[in-house]
């Protein structure tokens, strides 16, 4: 995993600590989802995108002796 990837992961890890929505329930996204819960649901989707990017850019293909690529 290269330096850029490590920095991006560290930033993403820090974004989990969303103190900016700590005491806020509103707005209720879609009329029923508190903003703090919506943020973490969106963060989870962001995780999938980040991991897709990491798989694309830092895949440890050298570990595979067979040709599955």
């Amino acid at each position: 995993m290269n330096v850029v990837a490590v920095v991006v992961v560290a930033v993403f890890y820090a974004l989990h600590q969303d103190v900016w929505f700590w005491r806020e329930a509103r707005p209720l996204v879609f009329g029923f989802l508190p903003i703090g819960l919506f943020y973490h649901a969106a963060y989870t989707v962001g995780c999938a995108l980040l991991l897709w990017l990491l798989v694309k850019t830092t895949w440890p293909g050298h570990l595979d002796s067979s040709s599955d690529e």
Partner: protein
Amino acid sequence: MIQSVVVFAYLAIALYIGIFAFRSSRGGGNAEDYFLAGRSLGPAVFLLSLFGANMTAFSILGASGHAFANGIITYGLMASSSALIIPLSLLVIGTRLWALGRRHGFMTPVQMFRDRWECAHIGTFIFAVQAVLLVPYIIIAVMGGGTTLAAVSGGVIPFWLGGAIVSLVVMGYVFFGGMRGTAWVNTLQTILFLLFGTIAVVVIGAGMGGFSAAMESLTRSAATAPLLTRERFSPLYFFSYTFIPLSSIAFPHIGIFCLTAQRLGHFRKTVILYPVCMLAIWLPSVFLGVAANAAHEVPAIEAKLEARAELASGGGTLAPTDRDRLRAQAGGDDVILRLVDGYAPVWLAAILGACVMAAVMASDSQILALSTMFTEDVFAFYGGKARFGPAVQVTTGRIFVVLITIVAYVIALRMPQSIFDIATQYAFAGYSALSPLLVAAIFWRGSTRWGALATTIWTAVAVVAVAVIQQSIPAPPPGSAVPVWSAFGADIITRAPQGALVLGFLPVVPMTIVSALLMWAVSRATASALPSDTTMRRYF
């Protein structure tokens, strides 16, 4: 009645899967085929079964109960942090474990540790600590099975018989199907969870007349508005929970699961889709748990809310026995069951029954992992395989599956569940503290067996110390903390309502950091014990 039929149908299907997996075995009964499904799982089964192995009863029932009492913080504490850390650890560590297992024939993490650090008995010690931390999960599953069958049958099936039936079914498909059967049952379990979450939100939402009105009513009440924020929790407590998912890759059953993929490429979809599965299962569970606070028309939920209000108004003036009674009444572990009873048709209740049964049967991978560890790390390592042959090794594994099931069942009948509930909480912190072992073995040339031993001893001592503090000092009333050890004018260790804290962090944080520091410091101090060049060349 319908719920009982669906639950028993699920049990029958699980057992059949195990027997079908036994018939599908292609390895002629060798150990690799039984314990690792011949390292041949395809991408879909690998993703769903690995995910299922990580999901315990807590994901469906406990998450809703925790959210009912604590609010939306539950998702951030346990789901979104896991959605980043677990797949990341699969990408960074899991793929390396897979490759080393392929190249050198490892079937357990301890086999790799022994080879990597050229040690014998230290490996046995690591095995023992791992096994002790794993056993409570198996006992809890027996208890959960007994309770669930007793509940869905309306008490017709007593606890002892329900526990026996569930134990026999799990033992049956693990005994016959080995890893292949376990992976297929876990796949079915994950599909059930994924289906239930979405359907439950839609059906219960319709039953409650939409969630908007429910959420608006929660924001208007001073008692429930904090549930939609995280204002009652400290950011340090929230941060601490990001260390818990480190335990996942260190759990032996997850490490062993990493060895079952047919190709390295199967990790790709698992890594990318893991967060999506987390979202699909945890968001409905947490949201429904929070929304239950507005379900006043369901009598069982209203009784919980009244007990909670009495607990809050009584504050520190309540007698400890009254406080414990009210806490038990206000407990929300069955809140999703009550929501389904109150708002959903009987067919959804039946699916939920099957989901709950699937969740409490999640101990299958732990039983198989313990069996694999015992046969490989103890029986084979100490000469059993050489003396009796590989066929006897599989038989030993199967006998171990039977023995561990019987032992777990007997303990489950004789001891209170609360002990094992607590033990599993410590196990997460313990396995997080063991994660530096894997990182050092795979990535750090300078690590030595003495560093590994120091890390493992520290983990065992720390888990016992936290358990003693937590059990010997009663939980104080909400909003307060009891100092346990103070130094330099600061409270270093405190006992808070949610457990022991170290400088405001959960114990898992210092446990994991000290563990990593010990690995580094002791390895540097014992550099003369570095493995030979031949060993090093095989890893770096």
